[in-house]
């Protein structure tokens, strides 16, 4: 059965049942290792450094200054 076939029936559900369905699907997905491959307790490194506000503007100003004849 495809999503397109299921969707009309889902839309016809009362709001409370829609919420139950959301929770049910969320719990199902939690158990799918391919969907949620993150390991509990492991530290994941984020490569993107964080800068205080204005970093991009400072670089653009440097470029603009260098581009001036």
């Amino acid at each position: 059965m495809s999503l397109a076939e299921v969707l009309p029936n889902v839309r016809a559900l009362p709001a409370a049942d829609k919420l139950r369905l959301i929770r049910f699907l969320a719990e199902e997905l939690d158990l799918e290792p391919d969907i949620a491959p993150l390991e509990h307790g492991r530290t994941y490194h984020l490569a993107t450094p964080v800068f205080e506000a204005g970093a991009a503007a400072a670089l653009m100003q440097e470029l603009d200054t260098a581009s001036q004849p």
Partner: protein
Amino acid sequence: MQFAYSPAGKPLLPLTLTLGGESLAVEGLLDSGADVNVLPWSAGQTLRAAWDDQRATIRLGGALAGTPAMPLLIQARVGEFAPVRLAFAWCRTDEVRLVLGQTNFFMEFDVCFFRSRMEFSVAPNGRSRTM
């Protein structure tokens, strides 16, 4: 121009940086979530860039809060493309990796990610600030 993801699954782009008479072959992480290009301290030193406290007006945040960085313009060549001028936040730490971010790598190049094929493509956008 097509490139393969690294064995660790990262879109690392090989490029050559040139400053003055010094050149350095590096790999930059293509990071569309990064506001700026980031240059680690040792890479700038290898290029013999001159640190200037007066111009180090950029500050890192997060775990590296307070670490200064200064704007540094460097000529960069990707493959056979014409060299472009990239502006880096040259950080006074090696706790960062070389990152290619929105200002201004993504302003100079169009990038497409094909994660399912473990490939990405890079092309000049035609509005480059050529050197």
